[in-house]
């Protein structure tokens, strides 16, 4: 009996936080269904969803955000895994280099946007280098990377910040696997490359996939980078949603909330999909029970 109370007390703060999170989500969803009593809207309806989902501008924004999230997460996961593998392969799992890898974790997204401007703008350092090397004759010849519909600037900024995050996130697990099972594979005749791809990498996948999910959800709902580095059209979904939220016409609030609702529901769906996949994989690894 006393044990039960102890557990409840220990979990009370988390319960409070969870209640806040759920209340926040509930509020967004409720308002997206047209329930905003403060503005005199008190009937639940799907009409706002219908209106927004039928709007080509919204669909474009959704596409942009999905693309930013997918490419950023994929590139960061790949680059981060490569960095991690290099750290493990050269035995540098502690020390100066790992601190360097953690540096981008300290840098806020807004500052990475500044990096992108200073490096990739048409008057940025890369353009200057290209000019010095004779590759371009004038800054207007340098390819547009910022404020483009392709959102290259935002993706590159996410890559700079999140690839090291992946490397650091996966490092302990991969080093542990490589030092035991990877070593065993080499001992049994697998070349270092083969040992990495047949043993170390598959067994590091849970951490890599988790990092991918975190980055995907973050980049999908991220505001600063697409706001600072994106074009006027098409806007990323969180930027579009914030604009709608700030609209002086208060009775338009549900339209903004539909966009936030879509971001929320798709993120949760991604997380659920991840959960189902890992559970299926886990069951497969568990194999037949005796």
């Amino acid at each position, binding site marked *: 009996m006393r044990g039960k109370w102890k557990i409840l007390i220990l979990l009370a703060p988390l319960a409070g936080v969870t209640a806040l999170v759920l209340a926040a989500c509930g509020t967004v969803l409720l308002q997206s269904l047209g329930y905003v009593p403060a503005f005199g809207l008190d009937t639940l309806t799907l009409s706002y969803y219908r209106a927004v989902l039928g709007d080509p501008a919204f669909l474009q924004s959704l596409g942009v955000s999905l693309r930013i999230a997918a490419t950023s997460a994929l590139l960061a996961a790949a680059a981060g895994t490569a960095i991690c593998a290099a750290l493990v392969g050269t035995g540098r799992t502690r020390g100066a280099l790992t601190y360097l890898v953690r540096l981008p974790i300290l840098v806020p997204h807004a500052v990475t946007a500044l990096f992108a401007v200073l490096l990739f703008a048409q008057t940025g350092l890369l353009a200057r280098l290209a000019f010095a090397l004779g590759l371009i004759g004038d800054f207007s010849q340098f390819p547009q990377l910022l404020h483009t519909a392709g959102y290259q600037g935002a993706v590159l900024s996410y890559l700079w910040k999140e690839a090291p995050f992946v490397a650091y996130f996966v490092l302990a697990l991969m080093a542990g696997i490589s030092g035991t099972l990877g070593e*065993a*594979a*080499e001992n*049994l*005749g*697998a*070349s270092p490359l*083969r*040992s990495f791809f047949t043993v170390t990498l598959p067994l590091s996948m849970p951490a890599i996939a988790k990092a991918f999910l975190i980055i995907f959800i973050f980049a999908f709902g991220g505001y600063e980078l697409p706001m600072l580095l994106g074009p006027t059209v098409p806007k990323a979904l969180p930027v579009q949603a914030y604009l709608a939220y700030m609209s002086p016409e208060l009775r338009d609030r549900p339209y903004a909330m539909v966009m936030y609702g879509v971001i929320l529901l798709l993120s949760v769906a991604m997380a659920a999909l991840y959960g189902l996949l890992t559970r299926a994989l886990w069951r497969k690894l568990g194999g*037949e029970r005796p």
Partner: protein
Amino acid sequence: MKLSVKEVSVSIGRAPILRNVSLEVESGELLSLLGPSGCGKSTLLKTVAGILPPERGEVWLGERDISRCPPHRRNTVIVFQDLRLFPHMTVADNVAFPLKMRGVGREERLGRAAELLRKVHLEGYDRRAVSSLSGGQQQRVALARALAAQPDLLLLDEPFSSLDEELREEMRRLVLELHREFHTTTVLVTHDQQEALSMADRVAVMAGGRILQCGSPREVYDRPALRQVADYFGGCVYLPGRVEGGRFCSPCLSGPVQAPDGPYDLMLRGSALQLDRPGPLALRLEECRFRGADALTRWSLEDGAVLERALPLPIPWAVGESVTCQVDWDRTALFPAAGGEGVAP
């Protein structure tokens, strides 16, 4: 295949672990590396397998210098203490792994795996997940996987230490059985004296990163070349005395030996006592403890030193009784008296 380790030194970080180690293991032999934990025996194994690079020295396998050969081309397979079975593969895929690395086709390698699983008494476990097996079963899978590689050299790194005693004995028997069948040159690392003495053709005793003595189990136990080796096996007393004209003389015991004249200490173990033959050594039974299958007796010598000896029941003497006995001189060793420590005669 014959293994030759030639004057190998290894450091990890700045700490020297192996100092100028040389060792030969004959083709088909089972050699045991015996020593306390931290003596460098696992390091030697990893150096032979190419996982740790030696600072100096060479490793030869048969007629080939493999010192520069990467681990995956050495064909020197370790069964690790923690087994290191691949958790994302079935039992059969684990066993077939080395064959897959060699490009053996799926059908053939799974057939081979099934055959090896039968040899380790795990028939029909092919499709099971590794995590569903007991500790002893996992041990057998690791062994089968190592054999699947058809290693030139099989290296067992304390592979039974995580098992309970009964299972350990069963595994020892299995390893000996497989060794008899495959004649794989084998190095068994252990800190269990009985395991080393009962399984190996030869035992190499290690301490402080060096090999102290290498010889048959009887040699290293009964005729240790160094006090350190004698002390490692333990249970011995040293009787100080002198050798004069081929005869060792001490207050408690004298007898014929082969050594030049001078002061010596005679190492004597309980196992060298021939209690059924009256002789020059006077003893008193101090204690007798029933142990089930036998009894452990403690005997004091005239100078107060104490020896232990397990004896079959019933014990014909009463505690406190004095007896005299013969000594099996082949099971004793002479060391130059303290200060002159060095090689035994």
